[in-house]
């Protein structure tokens, strides 16, 4: 399979600030990649360089087989982080204009605009001026503008920012639809939950440098915390007996839940069965690493991160309760 995006040692500086440093990245065609990292990590700069909106100080890139995205703009869809519409323009006119700029001139364009608006549940707004729409509606119109020409490569910069849970779900479904259609998708987010929901491959950027480039399966294997979450049916139950279960390393209480650490070579399935026999469980599950945990672990491992900074990082990476609702 060919590669949709290839970046080699890409570096971009603004004055004395290094926004992106020696970034290597390969995104195969048809993949759904998430670029994650806290605010100011260099995600948007990377995306702008991929799109040839900004030009790298050094390094090489290939986009859809071209040396510059300028040669493949009509095959790329882009939803920028900083979104905008022509306030005085009608929605259908704006979408038609964007389609024209992307090389779509077919006579059925009006119908296509209507169909796309229907897909994002905005069938009744095509004749309205953009300024008359709510912020969420405007974001959906902008998303339609990014996919109206059915791009081969769709780049979404923080696509869920500012959307309510219902619209986040709608947008996520549309992204999945585009992926199923065959589009390569690269999206950036600082909210790890969004990446966990959508991506099959994650690239982490921190302070302009790539710190992780891995599939989800690989991340789970690499960052397996080897622990079990256990909540007894009876909150007052004596769980000390669990320490004697073969393969259990230690017990640690986290509120009403116990974190049971496992020995390196222990079989989690056998241990879960043994725990369930020893103490009646209300909930028992293998702990999975979250991207947030992985990110913090990597940052901890690669640099000295003070307690306050770690807290800030976590806050930056964590989504509001809305996203959690969507996830459930």
């Amino acid at each position, binding site marked *: 399979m060919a590669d949709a995006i290839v970046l080699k040692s890409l570096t971009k500086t603004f004055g004395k600030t290094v926004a992106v440093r020696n970034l290597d990245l390969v995104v195969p065609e048809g993949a759904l990649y998430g670029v994650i990292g806290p605010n100011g990590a260099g995600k948007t700069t990377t995306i702008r360089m991929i799109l040839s909106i900004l030009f790298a100080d050094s390094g090489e890139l290939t986009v859809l087989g071209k040396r510059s995205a300028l040669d493949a703009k009509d095959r790329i869809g*882009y939803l920028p982080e900083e979104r905008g519409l022509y306030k005085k323009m009608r929605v259908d006119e704006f979408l038609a204009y*964007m389609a024209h700029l992307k090389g779509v001139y077919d006579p059925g364009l009006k119908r296509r605009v209507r169909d796309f608006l229907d897909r994002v549940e905005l069938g009744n707004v095509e004749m309205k001026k953009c300024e008359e729409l709510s912020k969420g509606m405007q974001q959906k119109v902008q998303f339609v503008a990014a996919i109206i020409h059915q791009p081969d490569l769709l780049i979404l910069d923080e696509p869920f920012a500012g959307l309510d849970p219902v619209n986040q779900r709608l947008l996520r479904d549309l992204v999945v639809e585009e992926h199923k259609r065959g589009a390569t998708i690269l999206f950036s987010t600082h909210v790890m939950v969004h990446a966990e929901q959508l991506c099959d491959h994650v690239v982490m950027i921190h302070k302009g440098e790539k710190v992780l480039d891995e599939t989800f399966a690989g991340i789970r294997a690499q960052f397996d915390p080897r622990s079990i979450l256990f909540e007894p049916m009876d909150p007052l139950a004596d769980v000390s007996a669990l320490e004697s279960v073969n393969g259990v390393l230690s017990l640690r209480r986290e509120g009403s839940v116990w974190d049971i650490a496992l020995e390196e070579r222990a079989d989690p399935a056998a241990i879960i069965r043994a725990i369930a026999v020893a103490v009646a469980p209300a909930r028992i599950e293998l702990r999975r690493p979250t991207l947030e945990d992985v990110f913090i672990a990597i940052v901890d491992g690669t640099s000295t991160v003070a307690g306050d900074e770690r807290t800030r990082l976590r806050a930056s990476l964590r989504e509001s309760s809305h996203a959690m609702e969507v996830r459930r």
Partner: protein
Amino acid sequence: MKKILCVAKREFMATVTTKAFIIGILITPLMLGIVVTILPRMMNRTPPKVVGEIAVVDPTGQVIEGFRAYLQPERFVERSNEISRDASDKMPEAVKSVVAKSAGGQAEMQRQIAAALGDAPQLTVLGLEPGADLEQAKSPLKNSTTNKSNEPERLALVIVHTDAVQRAQGKDRFGSYDLFVRSKLDDRIESDIRDGLREAIVDARVRGSGMSRDEIEALTTVDQPRSRTVTAEGERATNQVFNIMLPAAFMFLLFVSSLTSSQSLLTTTVEEKSSRVVEVLLSAVSPLELMAGKIIGQIAVGFVMLALYAGLGILALYSFAMLGLLDPVLIVFLLIFFLIASVTVAALMAAIGSAVNEIREAQGLITPVMMVLILPMMLWMPISREPNSALAQTLSYVPGVGNFVMLLRMASNSPPPAWQVALSIVACAAGAVAAVWAASKVFRIGVLMYGKPPTFGTLIRWIRMS
């Protein structure tokens, strides 16, 4: 190219369909109409309808009657008509016929005279004895203008000198008069009092010397016939107003059309940047394509304005049978210079618009550009009077202002030689190319740059960086 035209089309439509543009395009002819019709009325020299008396102490006894006759209401109307006749004589024939038609002919003229008589000042001349108490004669002048009694208000006191009509023994010069007026007397009334006294005293002097006033006037008056301009196409009456106004009209057309469209370009660029739609556009077109499209779109807007105003002007000349006075080659050069000027100014405005976050911030950067652009407007009169002066020639080759200056010179009475026109076009076109080149560098960086508004120094650094 298709994308550039697509951007240009949107830019054009987004500008010409706004209320601001439609109002703006109408406001200029409207202002011209006001200047032509209302301003002359506001500057009306006809004295106001004033009722009052003028006391005159005339020891010669030869001035007062002539003065009284001069201030009769009928004479005010007569003089007013004379001024109108003079103005009418200077009008082109076609305009005269239009005015005559609109006035409704002779009957209308009579009606106007009757109305004018009612509106003319009603001034009574009161003769005082030569030995009258002057302080007492002056005291009514001190009274308030709101006179409750039926007696006419005293507006002025005139004391004619004893030697005003006949020289005093051993003197070379005649005497004159003293004039005392009440406060806030209308300057036009005072002017009529002075004119009346002058007429009456001169009349008395001429009579006293045994000569005829009519004879003297006949001897000292030479009619000034209107000159005729001789051209290869034939002779025609010289139109001095046209000759003076034509260069200014051409420069004004060029200025308004190129600057208005460039202002729109600035506004739309700032709007696109501040509404953040620019990044969406840049995912579809390159910065250069975007800028080129915007410039082409706004040049089309300027061309609409130019065509509209120039069309109206040509229509007016045609209606007044004056189209023959216009050299069609000038129209061709107007279009050439419009294109060059528009590209230059639009490129500068696009660069400024891309560099700032809001219109307010653009003011600091626009001011120097505007100062340069209005230079030819300020130097209109000296350049049209001396179209081949060193100043005019030098400015013709300065990009940015050369277009305006050269057009002004070409429309003047002494057009420059062809090589100068060609050199000016080359210099200004080179300036336009340089402006587009520099603007594209600034545009590429500025359009995605937010925060502190840049200075000229920053813009130059961006050009170097690119």
